[in-house]
């Protein structure tokens, strides 16, 4: 069977199943079955085998742990402390709570690796507060959803763990690479909030006094240590990503259970269950997506794609934009994790051929897919924020698209100037080429 025929069968049956509302994970698995039956050299047992191989990974084990740490932080009331700190720092800018929202998302992103935990945790506090102060519900929802994408760009990041584990890219390198683009997204977004606030006359807080600021800083200080421990520990070679995720869990349990005394045993069990159940759904996709990706590789589809890509030249910038475009499109329809497994692995040789550094390629992918978290029809963070704000997703779309413009500009900068991404990893990891 030719690569084109195989790809047509795989993607064709996948699309049909998706339209029938079959969950993405099941659609990816079912799409493999016809080829596994038709080809004499293959058997559907390989579906189980590929899934088993992808789950049997010590690196991926950090995904439920990072999610658990984030959920524990929410339950422990750490999010409120970060809000107090952000309010004392940026509350006096025009559109105060909008800036607070963006800054809390940045701080929270350094603590958690998950955008959905961020949208849920921050949204449940700030969206009602913003609506009460007279912000439009659409804007409150849009800014919460868009700011939460920093969760997977600023380290630690579940998407980067999956990417690094799957494509053998240094996870500490990826974490370092995400810092600058993540902070830039925050700054770009604050500028956007400023424009909104001026045009719609949003309220401001009085400037906090130094004493108030210091008090808020002290309240949040223990939480702010988390990124230092996690990222410092991984980059300094003290522990692996999985061990760091465990330390994040222990640290947040100690904060919630002993220092702040805000989590009891019952609450702890509830958070355990929710983290296990939610991460299992996301991870289950990795298995069927791996089988799907394995079949694409078996029929040499990636090689065919590289040959096709020669057509538009091997210019790194053009290739970078094409890659970002594909990830943006795919991210609109499916979850980021299966998109990484299927599309990331297929595009890797294309990026390599164009001379894009593996870390640069990964960040282009992660940032583009992060935007998919706020674009319909499948924008998980937008769905969460809209349900907290009690509005329909459609009502927030206009504000979301306005906030996305500067974010797309940043993505272009990241593509054109690889140094934005590669500067920190090259400084801290000397043997990185």
């Amino acid at each position, binding site marked *: 069977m030719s690569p084109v025929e195989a790809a047509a069968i795989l993607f064709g049956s996948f699309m049909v199943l998706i339209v029938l509302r079959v969950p993405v994970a*099941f659609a990816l*698995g079912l799409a493999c079955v016809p080829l596994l039956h038709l080809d004499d050299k293959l058997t559907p047992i390989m579906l189980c085998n590929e899934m088993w191989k992808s789950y049997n990974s010590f690196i991926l084990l950090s995904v439920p742990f990072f999610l658990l740490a984030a959920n524990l932080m929410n339950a422990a009331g750490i999010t409120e402390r970060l809000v107090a700190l952000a309010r004392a720092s940026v509350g006096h800018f025009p559109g105060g709570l909008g800036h607070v929202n963006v800054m809390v998302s940045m701080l929270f992103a350094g603590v958690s690796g998950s955008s959905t935990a961020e949208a849920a945790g921050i949204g449940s506090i700030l969206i009602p507060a913003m609506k009460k102060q007279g912000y439009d519900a659409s804007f409150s929802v849009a800014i919460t959803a868009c700011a939460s994408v920093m969760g997977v760009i600023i380290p630690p990041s579940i998407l980067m763990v999956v990417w690094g584990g799957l494509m053998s890219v240094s996870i500490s390198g990826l974490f370092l690479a995400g810092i600058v683009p993540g902070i830039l997204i925050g700054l770009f977004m604050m500028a956007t909030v400023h424009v909104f606030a001026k045009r719609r006359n949003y309220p401001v807080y009085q400037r906090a006094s130094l004493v108030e600021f210091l008090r808020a800083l002290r309240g949040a200080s223990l939480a702010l240590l988390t990124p230092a421990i996690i990222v410092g520990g991984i980059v300094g070679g003290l522990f692996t990503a999985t061990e760091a995720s465990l330390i994040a869990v222990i640290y947040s349990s100690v904060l919630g259970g002993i220092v702040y005394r805000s989590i009891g045993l019952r609450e702890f069990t509830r958070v*355990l269950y929710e983290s296990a159940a939610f991460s299992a759904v996301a991870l289950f996709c990795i298995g069927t997506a791996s089988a799907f990706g394995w079949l694409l590789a078996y029929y040499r589809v990636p090689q065919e794609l590289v040959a096709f890509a020669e057509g538009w030249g091997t210019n790194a910038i053009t290739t970078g934009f094409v890659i970002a475009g594909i990830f943006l499109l795919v991210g609109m329809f499916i979850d980021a994790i299966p998109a990484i497994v299927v599309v990331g692995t297929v595009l890797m040789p294309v990026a390599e051929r164009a001379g894009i550094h593996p870390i640069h390629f990964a960040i282009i992918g992660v940032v583009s897919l992060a935007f998919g978290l706020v674009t319909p029809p*499948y924008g998980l963070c937008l769905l969460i924020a809209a349900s907290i704000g009690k509005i329909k997703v459609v009502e927030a779309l206009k504000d979301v698209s306005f906030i996305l413009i500067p974010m797309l500009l940043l993505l272009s900068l990241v593509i054109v100037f690889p140094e934005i991404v590669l500067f920190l990893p090259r400084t801290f990891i000397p043997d990185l080429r």
Partner: protein
Amino acid sequence: MLRTVLEWYYRQLRSLIVILLTTMLVVVSMQVFSRFTGFIPRYLWTEEASRFCFVWVIMIGSIIAVRDNTHFNVDILPHPKSKRIEGIYGLMTHSAMLAMAFVFVRYGYEFARFGVKQTSEISQINMLSIYLAFPVTGVSWVLFLFEHLLSDVNLIANQEQGNET
């Protein structure tokens, strides 16, 4: 009757996934602390054991998500305007998922049979105990999907009888 049994099974799965995640936390903690402190011996089996718990967490999570209807899907079709259309949509989706469940039962069984003769590299666990996750998941999906399909059929039938419920 069927629903009571399934509800009981569902509760057991919910407890089991919490126990497995806790085990993972304990086992990985032992591994980390044995490396940083001198007084806990260095275990080799911790890495393997945590991976095996992890596989079961994912598979049990996928079963729970079938019952809860929380697997991610994409809404492209127009929103169902009546209960009946909602039932027809459900029937399509759940039948396709049932096909996948049967693939898991049939070939998961074959896959698990490979495990009978294999033991794991480090702790010599019989691999059947892990490979078994595939057929078990398949059978559990079948059970919960039948429950969903029954509700779908009910939705369609009730509408035809003129909105009795």
